[in-house]
């Protein structure tokens, strides 16, 4: 296991290669983890995601990744969830109420109201709620690319930025070692690259701090 690498959870998500490419452009080496063994000992974990909540949770379960992922997060491993990877952190989602989420963040994921066009597809801006690790150095008016119909409408203690589309929803959250974004940084041009770089630096600093 290369300890310097960043681990991407491979559950078959379509955007995994894009995330790999985006991190590669930053000079970050990544490895894919589709098994508990591959996930073990990860210094930092990224859970990319697109598609259906139920399918994500089922696949994590089938591949034996659910427990190890929760354990790694509980141990303080720096974690970045992207899009569905953010939604997976919650207790449940109305997209598939029978499947439980990872339950790292309190609350549930709900459909965005149909008063606006869905999916919420395209570039939108954020409203900052408090200082953020991921958004450090990112201009307030920066646009990020979203593609989703469900969202966490609230995460009182964890949300660092929200976005509006029919309703206000959590666009970025940070809870100790757990960071997540509803948008796709890997598809969001320069601001997106900066968000990924901020995560990589957060992970490096955390790892260095533990070794010191």
């Amino acid at each position, binding site marked *: 296991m290369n300890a310097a690498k960043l681990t991407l959870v491979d559950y078959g998500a*379509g*955007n995994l*290669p*894009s995330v790999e*490419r*985006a991190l590669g*452009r930053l000079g970050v080496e990544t490895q894919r983890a589709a098994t508990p063994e591959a996930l073990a000992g990860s210094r930092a974990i990224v859970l990319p995601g*697109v*598609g*259906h909540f139920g399918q994500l949770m089922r696949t994590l379960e089938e591949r034996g990744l659910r427990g190890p992922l929760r354990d790694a997060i509980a141990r303080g491993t720096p974690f970045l969830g992207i899009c569905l990877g953010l939604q997976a952190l919650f207790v449940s989602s109305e997209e598939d109420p029978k499947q439980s989420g990872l339950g790292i963040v309190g609350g549930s994921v709900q459909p965005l109201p*149909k008063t*606006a*066009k*869905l*999916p*919420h*597809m*395209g*570039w*939108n*801006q954020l*409203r900052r709620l408090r200082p953020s690790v991921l958004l450090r150095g990112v201009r307030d008016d920066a*646009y990020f*690319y979203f*593609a*989703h*119909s469900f969202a966490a409408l609230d995460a009182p203690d964890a949300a660092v930025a929200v*976005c*509006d*589309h029919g309703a206000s929803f959590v666009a970025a959250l940070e809870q100790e070692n757990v960071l997540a974004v509803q948008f*796709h940084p*890997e*598809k*969001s*041009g*320069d601001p*997106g*690259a900066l968000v990924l770089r901020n995560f990589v630096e957060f992970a490096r600093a955390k790892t260095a701090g533990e070794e010191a």
Partner: protein
Amino acid sequence: MSLARRIIPCLDTDGASVVKGVRFVNLRDAGDPAELAARYNREGADELVVLDIAASRDRRGTFLETIRRVAEQLAIPLTAGGGVRSVEEGRSILRAGADKLTVNTAAVLRPELIEELSREFGAQAVVLAIDAKRCAKCPDRSVAALHQASNSALASGAWEVFVRGGREATGRDAVAWAQEAVARGAGEILLTSMDRDGTRSGFDCALTAAVSRAVGVPVIASGGADNPADFLAVFSEGRADAALAASIFHDNLQRLGELKQFLASHGIPVRLVA
């Protein structure tokens, strides 16, 4: 703060090279897809569409390689399609690096394909492409007339769906087909006016508005773009969520940055790239 209207350059390819034509015929070579992709990514395109308009079975591998080469260049979303008939073909396109795929002819022939793709990849990854043509005997569908008409009256056969690259009429009403496709799980509509395509006479705003009002998903207007005023019109009276063009961008007749500055100065929310 609101969702930006998107400007989307389109690369029509024969699988390997970018080609151009007027009203789907008289194709000519217009450059390397990866080079154009890199330029548009840099100049502020909000998304890129790459289509295999030949869509011949034996060249599918070539097109997948083209998608890979294009995706390498992009830090923005990529939509790809042309001849997709099955979940497996859709998967190969997404695996090659596309974020979304378009379906057109195969979905008209077998509408269940939309459900299959949507179930497998999510609605956000399934774009229904419609090639629509104004039918000669139809009633007045000017924007003014549409504004007066009730929603139910919009679906009365003003635009007909064509398939097989615009060569074959289907007898289907474009607005009704868009609604059916969305009900089946399409997450976006790529709407091309065959009357306007390649003519540089402006988007068909009436067509775009009719479809945009009829469905709850984003609509990408396509066909006829010439100048910034055309884009302004299709975003305002056409109610488009995104607008697509090819030749005016390929030939440098319209710079993306200038187009967006123009739209911003007219109150359209766009993503300006420094």
